[in-house]
């Protein structure tokens, strides 16, 4: 049996497993969450800040309190920081109390969105 991995789309792996008796197993794996893919897949329009990957209810509320009520406002902050994910992560952690994983996920989400649409 052997395995073939093929990187099909941005974050997708197609995995073909061929078994010794001819059995072929096809599977799909992704490195990103569904929320991430949903956000990066289309213009954000008027989506709420909770649509961002890594931003849940509580974090979203804290951001809204500071005036970042829409995803595009957070995008604005990201752009102000020159799309620097590290700076953005730091800012997000400071502004909303997000942890590293959440902030990193959000930064990554925004960066990919920018790569696709900006």
């Amino acid at each position, binding site marked *: *049996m052997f395995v073939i991995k093929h990187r099909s789309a941005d974050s997708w792996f197609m995995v073909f497993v061929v078994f*010794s008796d001819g*059995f072929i*197993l096809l599977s799909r794996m992704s490195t*990103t969450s569904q929320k991430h893919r949903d956000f990066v897949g289309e213009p954000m329009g008027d989506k709420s800040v909770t649509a961002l990957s890594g931003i849940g209810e509580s974090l979203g509320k804290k951001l809204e309190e500071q005036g970042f009520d829409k995803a595009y406002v957070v995008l604005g902050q990201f752009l*102000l920081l*020159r799309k620097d994910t590290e700076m953005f992560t730091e800012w997000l952690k400071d502004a909303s109390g997000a942890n590293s994983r959440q902030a990193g996920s959000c930064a990554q989400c925004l960066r990919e969105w920018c790569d696709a649409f900006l």
Partner: protein
Amino acid sequence: MAEFLEDPSVLTKDKLKNELAANNVPLPSGEHKKEVYVQLYLKNLTVLNNKKSPPADTFSSDEELPAPVVSNKSRSGRKATKKTDKPRTEEVEVTDLTDEDLKQQLAKHGVESGPIVASTRKLYEKKLQKLLDQPPAEPEAPTDVTALPKADSNQNGNTNSDQYSDKEDEEIAAPEPEPVPVVEKPVRSRGKAPVTVRTSSRRQTKVVEEIVVEETPKKASESVVEDILANEISTPTGISATCRRPIRGAAGRPLKPSEYWLDESRVQHSIHTESRSYSESFSRPGSAVSSSKATARRGFLSVLLKLLLLVVVGGSLYYAYQNLDADQINTLKGLLDSVIVPLQGAVDSAATYLGISSSSATESTGK
């Protein structure tokens, strides 16, 4: 004892006189205005309240008593704190920098910063603070809001610090704790995810042949596995294949598995297919959870498990040879078939649970 009134004028003249007399204060002879006695009272008695040094007996009734005391206090206290006493240059005080200066300072340290606006200012201040704290090797207190002058970065000159012999900044000997947060790098989220994906896909393939995966903890991949997997993704097109093993039973090749497909372990199974599937029936009850753990990842643990499996297989063979009873073996074979089919079903249900689709030939008969 604070028993004397601050405002003796509330008392009557007679009372004042009595109070004064009671405290051995010499009264002016004759009848004077109440004011006189009030002043006396204040001078002699109220002053005692404050435990100040007793004023001299010679006094003038017109004197203002509390005033000198108060003014003394102001003068006798600490030295005048002039603004320039604790020199804070703009260089070091990041919060005092203008936006332009802050940007320039960051540029000096090689940081390309975006516009300094309300929402970004604090961040860049922190960054500059961090940068300023790094270079100085001397055990100076890290520049915080209460900044210390630094000779090298002192644009305004060192004269300020030299002018005053009693430097207050020398009091701060111990370094103040830095409030700068440490930015954790989200490497984990990116670096590990691909690796784990690869190992998990391998895991799934293993599940069919062996029931291994149940207790795979989420650890970093072993270097062996990483090396193998790293090779796979390094190809430009992303298409890669593992080492291809000869297909057993094809092209006239014997069914006997001479070498196992697991590259990380290279476990050699000398047993034939029957006894291997036989062993699966034994190990299956112990690994019922394997189906739900198909997202597992461990190479090292799989090696251990395979060795364990080998031992179990060996033991089961020994047990079988002990019996050497045809009837029993036949019943066991029948049992085996009833086990393998649900096993396949379990694997497929796991696959669908995870959202991965199986292609054609989903149901292969028997292994």
